[in-house]
Structures are given as C-alpha cells and as structure tokens.
C-alpha cells in the first residue's frame, strides 16, 4: 500500500498520489455527490419524506458518503478490508518518512499529537474569528453588520465549533503526544483508532462550516428541538458534525483509558502517575460514557428531520424535554471534559516552577475522580425553569453545589504547592496561575446559577455566557496555552520567544477579564443570550466589551507571530529539558525518537520530588538487571 518508496525520490506529482489528505478530499467531494444522488433515489416513493420542502435524506447520505470517501482516501479502509481478507493483525502503519506523514494516516502517537495541535488549532481560530464578527455586530444595539439570520449562524458556528474543537483541545494534542511518554510506553493501546479520532475532526469541522452554504444554523450550539426539527439544511450539517465529533471523542476516551490502564511501565504505580495523566484518565471516562449519549440524541434529531419520526414533536407524542434531558446528560459531563484536562495541566506545571512537590497529590486525584462521578448527576440544573420536575430542583441544586467541593481540592493543591515555594514566573507558569484567577471567578459565578431563586434571573442571560467563558476560555484555553508554552519545545524541538510569549499572556489575561467581567453585569441587567439587538442603555458596556475582545484577537495574532518567528525564522533548538523538570517526558531526547525509549524504562520515583533529599531519578532508562522489556 505504501505507494511511495522513500529511497528514490519520485517527482512531486507522483508523491501526491496515494492514500493521503488530497485523495481523501477528492473522494470526499465525490462521495458527497454520490450520496446525495442515492439519497434522492431513496426518497422516491416515500410520502413522508416528500411532505417537506427539502430532502434531508439526500443531504445526510451526501455527508455520510463524503465522510466515507474521506476516510477511504486517507487509507482507513485498507486495514479492515485486509483483515477480512486474512491479513495478520498489526498495530502500526506509516510511521516513518518525511513531513508528508503529517498529511496522511500515521499511527505514531507523536505525529497524531501534532496533527491534532494544528488541526484543532486552525478550527479554534476560525471559531475565534466568528467571535470577532459577533462582537462587531454588538457594537450597536440595532441590527447593523449582519442580518439576524447570519448573526444567529455566527453564534451557532462559534459555539459549536468551539465546543467541538476544544473538547479534545488538550487530550488531542497533549494527551496523544505525552501520555504514552509519561507512562513509559511506546505507543497508544490502539494506534489506528488514534489516527481515526484525529481524521474525523477535520471532516466534522468542514461539514459544520458547510452549514453556511445550507441556510445556516438557528439553534445555537445546544440545538434544542423542536427548533432543530424545523431548521433549514444547515441543521443537518450541525447534526452530522456533532455525531462525527462524538464518535471521535468516544474513541479518544476509549483509547486513552485503555492505554493508561494497561501500558504503564514497570514501577509506574498509581501514586506515581503524573497528575496530568490522572486528569486524562478522568476525562476519558467521561468521554467514553457521555459522548455516546450525544450520538444517540443527535441520531434522534437526524431521524426527526430525515424520516419524520416524532421524538421531539409534542403534537405527535414526542417531547422537547426528552431532547433537553438527553442533551444535558451529555452536556454537563461535557463541560467537565473541557475543565478536567485544564486542572491536570496547571497542576502539572505548578510544581515545576514552584520547585516543590505537588501538595496533596491524593487529594487532587480524589478531586478529579469526584468531579467525574458527580458530573453525571447534575444535568437538570440547566432546566430549573423549564417546567419539568419542580420537585427535583433541590436535589439538583444540592448535587451541583456539591461538585464545588472536589473542584475546591484543586485550589487547595495550588495553595499548598505555592506555600513557601520558589516561584519562577515563566510563560507557562503565568498561564497556569491565571487559570486559577479565572476559574475562581468562573466557579464562584456558577454558584449563582446553581441556586434556583438566583437562576430565575441569570438563566439564559449574558450572565451564563460570561460564566462559561470564564470557565472554558479562562480555564481550558489558558491551560491550553500554558501547555503549549510548556511542551512545544519538546514537541517541535524549538524554543518559543519568551518576550512575545509574555506580551501574549498579559494582553490575553487583562483583556480577557475586561471582555467577560462586564458581561456578568450585562446579564444582571436583563440582556438575554443569542440576540443581535439589545436595550440601548447597554450600548456603552457592549462597546467596551467589543473593544476588549478585539485586543484578545490581537493577542492571538501575536501568538501566531511568535510561532512563525520562532519556528520558521529563529529556529533556536530547544534544550532537552529547558525547565529542569522531573517529568519523564523531559528525560527523553528531543526530537523524541519513534520508539520513545530504547528500552521500556523502570520507574523508580514520583515525578514531583523537588527538593526531596536524595530523591532517586524518575526512572532507570537502561534496566540492565531486569529482562529487557519490550525489546
């Protein structure tokens, strides 16, 4: 199948042919037309499909075949077909070769990590661009920049894109890249599935973007039925892309969980596991269990739209509450899918730059597992005023508030770790510390939302919007950038410019707060979410917010400039362990060899033993006395 022998360099055009992204795109586009045609044929003779003014079956079949074409073009069909024809099982595929391996199916977890970093990063910036366009509309209280329908599509695209892409914001790039290294393994448990999880992401992102061409999305990221049932074809793009992402998330969870459970190196006991790996484990439990529920609820929307079932149509026996319950049964764990990896990152970074052991390691683990468990029991707090189960409101108020106890543990860990520490304010550390400031505000504002009397005002208002941006952007995105500045030298082999990094940080931190803190007030002052027009007396506030948001955009451009400057122009090779960290991932050479380790190391000590007298090194990399593991 490898059509490209590496030894004798064939001409460029020849190397473009084969199983790669281009082929995938071509087959994907072809698949779209084929599927749409088949769908058109299927609808013939089915009156309930013709009762509507558009044939959703054709659209779904188009998307389905496009995805199949994309995956076939990338080479994902070769192995399953080979297996059916009797090929022996194998794990790995196409791991060596030039830069082209970044553009095709590659099972090296380090390649997948970098693919994720850039793939998800691109969609993240598209989502951010949408935010800028929205803030432009909100400069004036009347409709001005975009028609109402386009504004709504912008909100939905921004929200959906961001939620979809940031669900794997940390597990995708850093989970895939570093978890195997941090636990002393050579690969993930299921490398081929790992590659699949990534390649589904661009498919989902492109399909979501195609909604623009199909009449847009009118429902926001939550896609509430029955509004979703009546939406135009853009809604089909929403449904399809969310299904793809949810499948990807399920598999990411499965893969990482299996990896952590089975592939730890000898000596990597549960109490030596880096805290980041613990957070990945907790997150992957949530992913593997919650994302399938999203697939199911999206499938119901799909059937409501394509086959005129009535899951959510009240006059034919359905109920919109069914959608709300299913969606938030996924949706609340989802917000912890976003939050938990951030906890892991900041607690991983803190000890390195405080030069102290992680304070209260067990408590941190208990906190993450506690959050994981509780997050399945709180979903109806999104539905306090929906009119379902008024009698259950105290229960959900209680569970929601209980979840702040394990979350509080993470703060105590930080407090303890900083106690009499020797803090160095490097760029990653700044991001990690800012995380705590932002998450503090985000978390405490959540208490208002969990209290029913208070939620009567704040539900569906800009208060909620400020709250979740504080936790997602202030929490997850800050942690993400912390991880970028912390780990990129290992991943890409070059140092990032520190001054530009600090400018990026300070602009982002200050203007993030200036953007979103006033929005708490907007919510308190009666401004509902998802509107392009608002009360005139809120204009000053909104102008201020928009101006601050533009500066956030600027800070992101500075980040990109830093990337280009450092990676393309300066190219200062990074030291093997620039932060003098004890983490196992820093003890391997840069760039990390394909096999990660010459021999599977034997872990001899925990990763946070800073200042512990006579602490042994984290691992024995040449375990001579032991039988050479895995060689």
């Amino acid at each position, binding site marked *: 199948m490898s059509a490209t022998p590496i030894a004798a360099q064939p001409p460029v055009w020849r190397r473009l042919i084969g199983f790669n992204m281009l082929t995938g795109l071509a087959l994907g586009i072809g698949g779209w037309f084929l599927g749409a045609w088949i769908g058109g044929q299927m609808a013939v003779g089915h009156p309930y499909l013709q009762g509507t003014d558009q044939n959703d079956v054709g659209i779904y079949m188009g998307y389905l075949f496009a995805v199949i074409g994309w995956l076939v073009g990338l080479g994902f069909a070769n192995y399953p077909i080979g297996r059916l*024809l009797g090929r022996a099982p194998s*794990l*790995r595929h196409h791991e060596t070769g030039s830069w082209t391996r970044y553009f095709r199916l590659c099972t090296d977890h380090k390649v997948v990590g970098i693919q994720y970093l850039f793939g998800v990063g691109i969609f993240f910036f598209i989502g951010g661009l949408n935010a800028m366009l929205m803030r432009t509309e909100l400069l004036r209280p009347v409709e001005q920049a975009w028609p109402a329908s386009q504004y709504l599509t912008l909100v939905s695209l921004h929200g959906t894109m961001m939620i979809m892409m940031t669900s794997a914001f940390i597990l995708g790039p850093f989970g895939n890249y570093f978890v195997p290294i941090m636990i002393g393994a050579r690969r993930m448990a299921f490398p081929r599935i790992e590659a699949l999880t990534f390649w589904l992401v661009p498919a989902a992102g492109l399909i979501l973007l195609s909604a623009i061409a199909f009449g847009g999305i009118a429902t926001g990221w939550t896609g509430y039925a029955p509004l979703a049932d009546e939406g135009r074809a853009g809604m089909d793009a929403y449904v399809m892309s969310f299904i793809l992402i949810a499948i990807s998330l399920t598999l990411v969870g499965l893969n990482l969980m299996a990896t952590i459970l089975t592939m730890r190196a000898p000596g990597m006991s549960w109490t030596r596991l880096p805290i980041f790996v613990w957070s990945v484990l907790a997150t992957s439990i949530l992913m593997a*269990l919650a994302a399938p529920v999203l697939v199911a609820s999206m499938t119901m929307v799909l059937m409501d739209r394509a086959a005129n*079932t009535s899951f959510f149509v009240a006059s034919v*026996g359905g*109920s919109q509450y069914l959608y709300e319950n299913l969606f938030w049964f996924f949706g609340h764990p989802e917000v912890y899918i976003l939050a938990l990896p951030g906890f892991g990152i900041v607690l991983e970074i803190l000890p390195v730059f405080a030069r102290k052991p992680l304070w209260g390691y067990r408590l941190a683990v208990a906190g993450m597992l506690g959050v994981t468990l509780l997050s399945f029991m709180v979903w109806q707090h999104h539905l306090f005023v929906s009119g379902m189960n008024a009698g259950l409101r105290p229960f959900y108020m209680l569970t929601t508030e209980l979840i702040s106890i394990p979350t509080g543990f993470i703060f105590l860990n930080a407090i303890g770790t900083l106690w009499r520490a020797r803090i160095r304010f490097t760029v990653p550390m700044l991001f990690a510390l800012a995380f705590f400031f932002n998450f503090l505000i985000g978390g405490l504002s959540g208490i208002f939302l969990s209290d029913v009397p208070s939620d009567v005002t704040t539900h569906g208002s800009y208060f909620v919007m400020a709250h979740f941006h504080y936790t997602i952007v202030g929490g997850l995105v800050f942690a993400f950038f912390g991880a970028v500045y912390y780990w990129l030298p290992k991943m890409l082999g070059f140092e990032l410019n520190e001054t530009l990094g600090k400018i990026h940080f300070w602009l982002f931190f200050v203007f993030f707060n200036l953007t979103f803190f006033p929005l708490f007030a907007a919510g308190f002052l009666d401004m509902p979410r998802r509107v392009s027009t608002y009360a005139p007396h809120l204009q000053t506030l909104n102008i201020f917010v928009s101006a601050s948001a533009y500066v956030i955009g600027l800070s992101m451009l500075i980040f990109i400039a830093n990337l280009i400057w450092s990676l393309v122009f300066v190219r200062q090779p990074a030291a093997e362990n620039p932060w003098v960290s004890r983490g196992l991932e820093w003890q391997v050479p840069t760039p990390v060899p394909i096999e990660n380790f010459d021999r599977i190391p034997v872990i001899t000590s925990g990763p946070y033993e800073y200042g512990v007298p006579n602490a042994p090194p984290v691992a024995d990399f040449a375990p001579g006395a032991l039988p050479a593991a*895995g060689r």
Partner: protein
Amino acid sequence: MSAATVDAVEQPDILARNIRVGSRIWAASQAFFFLAFFFAFLYLRALNTSGMWRGWPHHHPSPSIAFGVAILVCVLGSAAIARSAALVAPEMWRATEWAALALALAAVGLQCAQFSSLGFGPTDAAYASVFVGWSGLFTVFLLGMCYWLATVIGDVTRASGTPVVRAAAVEGAGFVLLVLAGVEIAAFILLYVVK
C-alpha cells in the same frame, strides 16, 4: 520499517490486555448509547404527550412478535456461543465463532425482513419512532460485531498473531456481544411486551 517487525516486539500479554480492557470500555459506551433509547422509551411513554404515545386512536402500531422472538433468540444464541467460546478449547473456536457469526447475521437479516413488512412507519407517533430508531441502530451495532467476529474467525483459522492475543479477541468479542444481548433483552421487553 515494516509493520510486522514492530509488532513482533510488542509484548503479547499487553496486546491481549488492551483488547480485554478495550472491549470492556466499548461495551460500556454501547450501553450508554442505548441507555438514551431506553430512557426515551420510558420517558415518552410516561409523558404520553397529547395522548399520542401509541399513535392515533384507531391506529396503534404493533410489530410482529414472531419476528421479535426470532431476533431475540438469534442474538441471545450468538452471544451465548461467543461468550462460552472463551471457556472451551482453542480448537473449538473456529466452530463457535462461525456459529456466533451466523446467528448474528441471521438476526440482522430478520430485522431487515421485519422492517420491510412492518405495517407502520417512523411517522406513526412516539412509540413507532422509538421502535424504528432503537431496532435500526441495534442492527447497525450488530453488523459491527459481525465484522469483528469475521476477523476473529480469520485469525483463528490462519493462526495469525499470538495465541494469547487470539484468546483475548475471542473473549472480548464474546463480552461485547453479551452486553449487546442485554440491550436486546431490554429492547424486546420494552418494544414488544410493554409497548
């Protein structure tokens, strides 16, 4: 570097544990997927919005129970055989996996046959929606299991890979099928008996 040389150095017992753990997680994910339909059934039935759970007053969709029983028997049989394969000697695996595959395929076929002669359609109110959605998606998952069983048969027949890994695959497939059989029992009770 060819794939085979790398795989040759992977420790078989780790590969086997991966399959074992992976199959458990996958089974749990599937269970949560169908939990949504389980919930949809009970919830819509309890709400009975506008009195339309079972359909219009004069038209209550009811699927043929004979098909229901036949599908149930096939799925249960397939799962029982696949699951007990882990207990018998490896020489028997070829036979057991073939039997399990045949029964699973029979269930898929029966489901398709039932759909083509259902007597009602997805538009016939809430119960019909849940019925069509649940049984349809169950069939999709069952087809996935058929693929897995087919690869296991291939490995067992050609004795490819290592014995521990083959054993893990047989065991894992059996486990996932068992969970699917549990889903099918719930589906049978709700969709055919309770309604």
